[in-house]
Every structure is written in structure tokens, then in C-alpha cells.
């Protein structure tokens, strides 16, 4: 619901160059505008702008979805959301996912990429292997891991038993449920970031690396002072994807824990679903949606402005 915003607006102005050659400047560009802008604008308005506006409008009502909303309660829905403990838990969990993505997932992906970017026997097979989890559908992943984590029959349980310990029910405890979700998140998405890094590494200018080596730089020095600085654009992109992806995380959580127990593994989106949609509290749900939207937009624009200015 957030990131595509920048995209549609940028497409239009670049089109005019050919028209400028053919006619007196503005005319050609005008035709192109008339022809190409309305469909995009219409779709964008209909499916992005209007729903956002509607959500903002609904968030001022106490409304169960029947008829027209009539019971205007101003900003009370926002107050209710902020007063809900589960909201802060969800926000904390989103923060955790971001932290883990940045602190564990990306370094892991980068390390693997550095090892697998070079050509050697089995490199392609290994890349495929690490990329596989990303291809798997989220719901399927969640279901598979709910079996893996099962404290009676799961893989985790049998590992525990081989050491003679009483197996834990990871998904059933408020202390471990989020940890279990985080492990799946890392497992599922590190391959994607690894691929991004591999692609970047392979398009690196080899001369620079070679020059460094000739100048007597060690492997670590080359890595620290040449390769990684050259990867910065990709790293910034990767961080961007990781953060937006964490904010939107939903379909992994539902089959694993549904946000439970006691809301300990809700993300903002699963919190929205559990407390807004399945309770028919359209106004309250919309308020959560608006808050999430505000977080995403603020993040996306600041990030683009501060870190991705050159791209």
C-alpha cells in the first residue's frame, strides 16, 4: 500500500523527447500526455488514492461495515488504537523484524554472496539452494514451519529428544513465538538479498579489484575499501526492501501463530486484520491502516531523500 507511490508520477515527463523532434515542442508532448496519462492516472486514483482517502474518512467513525457510516467519533479510533497494548507489541515486533533483517539477514546474505559470486564448481547449485526459500509461497512456508516447530511431532522436537531434553512448544509461548517467526523470516528472505548482492558483485568493475590487488592490498583490505563501497547502492536498496517488507509482513505470521499467543507475535498488518477486519470494526481497522500508511510513507520518502538521492 505504500511504495508504488513514487513510481507512477515519475513515468510521465520522460516521454516527451520524441514529440519534441517532430513538432513544435509542446504539441507532441501534449498528445502523448493525453494518450498515456489518463489510464494510469485513472487506475492510480481508483485503486490507490481513493482507498487511502476512504480509509482516512472511515477512521473517524465507529462503523461495523453495514450501511453508511454515521456515528462520527472524531479521533477516538486513533486513541483506542494507541491505548491497545497489542498495538505497541505489534510495533515492537515490526521493529524487531527490521533489526534482525539488518543485523543478521543482510550480513549473512552479503557473506554468502561474496563466497558464491565467484565461479567454481557447485556455485550455481548452491545459489539455487539458498534462493529456493524465497520462491516458496508465504502461506506454504508458514504451514511447513508450523509442523517443523510442533512440540510433539516436529523436527525441532525430535532434535531436542535426541539430546534427551523435553521439547519446547516454540509457537505456544509468549517468550518464543516471535523468535520462531524471526527465524523463518531470515530463512525465507536471505536468499533474495544474496541474489541482489551476487548480481551487483558480478557487474562490478573487475579492474578496480585487480588494481587494488596489484597495489598490494590484502583480501580483507580489498573487501573493505573497494568491494563493499562499490556495493553501497545495492546495500541501500536491500535495506529499503528489508524494511518495507518487514512493515508489510502478514502472510508468514498467520499460518504460524495468527499473532498469538496473547498478541506476542502480531505484526502491524496482522494486528490490523485480527482487530479490525475480523471484528468488523471498520473504523478502528482503518485507523490502524492510516497509522501504518503514515509510517510507511514517512519512511519511504525520508529514506529516498537521505540515502538513495543519487539513484
Amino acid at each position, binding site marked *: 500500500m505504500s511504495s508504488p507511490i513514487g513510481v507512477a508520477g515519475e513515468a510521465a515527463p520522460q516521454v516527451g523527447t520524441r514529440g519534441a523532434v517532430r513538432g513544435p515542442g509542446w504539441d507532441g508532448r501534449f498528445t502523448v500526455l493525453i494518450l498515456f496519462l489518463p489510464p494510469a492516472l485513472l487506475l492510480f486514483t481508483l485503486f490507490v488514492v481513493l482507498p487511502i482517502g476512504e480509509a482516512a474518512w472511515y477512521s473517524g467513525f465507529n462503523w461495523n461495515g453495514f450501511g453508511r457510516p454515521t456515528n462520527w467519533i472524531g479521533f477516538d479510533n486513533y486513541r483506542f488504537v494507541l491505548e491497545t497494548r497489542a498495538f505497541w507489541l505489534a510495533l515492537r515486533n515490526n521493529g524487531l523484524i527490521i533489526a534482525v533483517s539488518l543485523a543478521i539477514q543482510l550480513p549473512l546474505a552479503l557473506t554468502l554472496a561474496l563466497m558464491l559470486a565467484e565461479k567454481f564448481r557447485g556455485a550455481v547449485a548452491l545459489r539455487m539452494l539458498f534462493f529456493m526459500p524465497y520462491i516458496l509461497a508465504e502461506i506454504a512456508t508458514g504451514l511447513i514451519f508450523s509442523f517443523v516447530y510442533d512440540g510433539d511431532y516436529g523436527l525441532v522436537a525430535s532434535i531436542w529428544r535426541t539430546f534427551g531434553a523435553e521439547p519446547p512448544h516454540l509457537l505456544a509461548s509468549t517468550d518464543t513465538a516471535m523468535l520462531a517467526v524471526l527465524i523463518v523470516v531470515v530463512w525465507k528472505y536471505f536468499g533474495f538479498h544474496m541474489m541482489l548482492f551476487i548480481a551487483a558483485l558480478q557487474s562490478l568493475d573487475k579492474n578496480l579489484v585487480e588494481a587494488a590487488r596489484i597495489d598490494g592490498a590484502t583480501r580483507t583490505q580489498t573487501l573493505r575499501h573497494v568491494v563493499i563501497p562499490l556495493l553501497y547502492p545495492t546495500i541501500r536498496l536491500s535495506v529499503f526492501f528489508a524494511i518495507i517488507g518487514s512493515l508489510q509482513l502478514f502472510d508468514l505470521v498467520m499460518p504460524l501463530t495468527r499473532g*498469538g*499467543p496473547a498478541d506476542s507475535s502480531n505484526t502491524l498488518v496482522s494486528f490490523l486484520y485480527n482487530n479490525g477486519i475480523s471484528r468488523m470494526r471498520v473504523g478502528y481497522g482503518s485507523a490502524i491502516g492510516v497509522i501504518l500508511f503514515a509510517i510507511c510513507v514517512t519512511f519511504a520518502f525520508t529514506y529516498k531523500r537521505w540515502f538513495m538521492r543519487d539513484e
Partner: protein
Amino acid sequence: MRLLGKLGLAAAACLLWASSASADTTVKWLHIEVNPAQVKIWEEVARSYEASHPGVKVEMQFLENEAYKAKLPTILQSKDRPHIIYSWAGGVLKTQIEADVLADITDSVKSGGYSDTIAPAALAAFTSNGKVYGLPTALSQVGFLYNKDLMAKGNVDASKIKTWDDLLGAVKTLRAAGVTPIVVGGADKWPLHFYWTHLAVRIGGKPGFDAALKGENGGFAGETFQKSGELFKQLVDLQPFQNGFLGFKNPQAVGYFGDGKAAMILAISSFYHTQRALAADKVGLSDDKLGWFDFPVVPGGKGEPSDTLGGITGWLITKGAPKEATDFLKFFISKDVQARLAAGNFIVPVVKGGEAGLNSAFMKQIAANLAKSNYHQNFYDQSLGPSVGRVVNDVTAEIAGGSMSPQNAAKAIEAAYKQGN
């Protein structure tokens, strides 16, 4: 010109054909039933109705339970809404009536003495201000199913469990004997809310619930509901449930019981049936190994021991539905069909005489319990509507998980109730 004439003729023919086709009525029936054996009987009933009513077609549509609940408000406001929809009565029904999306079928139901054939309490669940909006189809009761072998292993006499303290005692004895006392699907939350709710039914009785609805005696934050939480906590503190119970979904839990791994389950009467299908061997516990006792009483409680907690399910007619829809529904909820469904152990019937079809001792006992009950409380998560009902589920799961005190749980429900109304 000739071509035009031909086209005109063809168009006229089309129109004629179309209008003759639209003289047929299609009754659209939306359901959520997943048991193919039961749907098969419904199909047969629909086909036999079509056979005796030429020009009427009954079309069945299916939605999965959770999807159904989520989509219903939208579906009901579409022009193409189904004519007959599934309902758990209670708060959701109340909102639907207020939103004016249901048809008032009082006259049709009262005509020819039809309404007299239906159990009054069940019909009342679908009646509001003297107007009937739908018909009940089945009742269920919440109580303890137990595994006779495991109870014997733990040396517990289930027939002696009458009070809440008896239950606590039984749990202690079973644990000491190394038997998992109770299995529960805590991840779904509502199986846990049965404990809290049924305790409230025992402690406060009907007056207690009615008073809370009116906001008297502190509403849902009042003494009755705080005490329900406290007694529930007494049970929770004994660690009566299987390991990892907060991660179990209800079907898993019922299967666990069917596998013979736990002595008891606080069950809806239909679990008697579903534990077979959900057991790992698809056989489950046979009749001679299964027992049932009613939810224990609380000494000093205002509720009668015969009061029951359970579901009342039925069908609603939506606004603008053809009269054939109501007619078909009356045909469907008739003695014969109900007896047939009862014979398959699918329902505890609501039509008088339908219970003749019941052929298992277990279902007969449930039917007798329900017949004797003066206060049948619909599930709280249905009767209070989704917004408050789910909070009841949340807080009971939190009491069970030890993350909320009984007092705060009761307060949270009252707060949600105030917010929602």
C-alpha cells in the same frame, strides 16, 4: 431492410425466451458446511423440493467459515445477495436487523401453525421485537467429553464430578497418575472462552448476564465475571492442559483427544462426532470409551445446574428474497428432514418430533439436557457480536497464558462493550 427485419425478429425471440426463463425462480442458498455427508443430504432435500415445485431452482453456494464472517457485510449489501444465509444468531444477527438487510418472515412462519412445530427458545433466538427473521436448525451443548480408559487409569470417577472443586480435584489426581487431564485448542481462543463463559453462566445465571448487558452491577467488570476469571485461574494454575496448548488449533486438540492422549475436553456436543474424523487413525474413540458430564456447578452460584451453554444455529432470509426462499426454508426445517439429519448425528433437532431420528444414546442425552434447560446461553463470542466477543476470547486466552489477571480481563471486556455500544 429484410436483414433488419430478421434481426428484429431474432431480438424479439430472444426477449421472449429470456422472459420465459426468468419466470423460473432461483433460490440462492449460501452455507459454510464442510462435512460432505451432511451437504449430500441437503442436496437431496433441495432436489426433492425442486421436483415438487416446478419452476423453482435451489442453488447452493459455499464459503469457508472465517471468509464467510469477513465477507458477509459486503455480500449482504450487494444487489446480488444470496437469499438464505447461515447464522449463529446473537449480536451479529442484531446488527444485520438494524442494518435492514433481512426480510421479516413472521407471517409466513406463523401461518398454518408452522411456528408451533419449532422449539420456542430456538425460534426466539431468531426473533426480535416480535418479528421473525430466520429459522433455527440445530442446537448444541458445551460440556466435558471424557475418555473412560484414561479416567480409570487415573482412578477418577467422572460421574462424581459435580462441582468446580470436584473438577479441580480430578485434575490433580489425573496429573499425579501421569495422565494429561485436559486438552484444549488454545490458539483458536474460543475453546478457552468456554471455561470462563460457562463459569459465568453457573455463577450469575440468566439474571447475571442480563444485568451485565444493561450495564448494572458493574457490567462485565462486575463481581460475577471477575469471579469467573478467578475460578478459571484456579484451574489454570494446576496446569491441566497439554503441553503447548496455546499453540494448538481446535481441530488439532480434538484430534489429540480422539487419539486418546488426554482424559477430558471441554467440548461442543458435536465433537463427539468430529473427534473420529480428526483422530490420527480416523477412527478415534468408540462410543463405549466416551463419556460426558455437564459443566460442574459452582456452590452458591445463581445459575441452575440445568442451565446450558451452547450454540443456536439457523438460517436467515435476506431482504428482497423471493417468497419461494422462505417456503423452501420451511420445507428444509421440517420434521422429516430434521429427523434425517438427526439420524446421521449431524444435529440436535429443533423441530418437535425430529429427535425421533436420533439413534445414538449420546445425542439423545444431549437433546434431553437441552430440552430440560430453562436458560440456554448462546456462545458469548456470537451473542455479544464480533467486536466484544473476540475480546472475551482474547482475555480468556490471556488468563490461561498467565499474562492477565481475572480482574483486568473482566475490565477489558467491559471496556470493549462500552466502546462498541
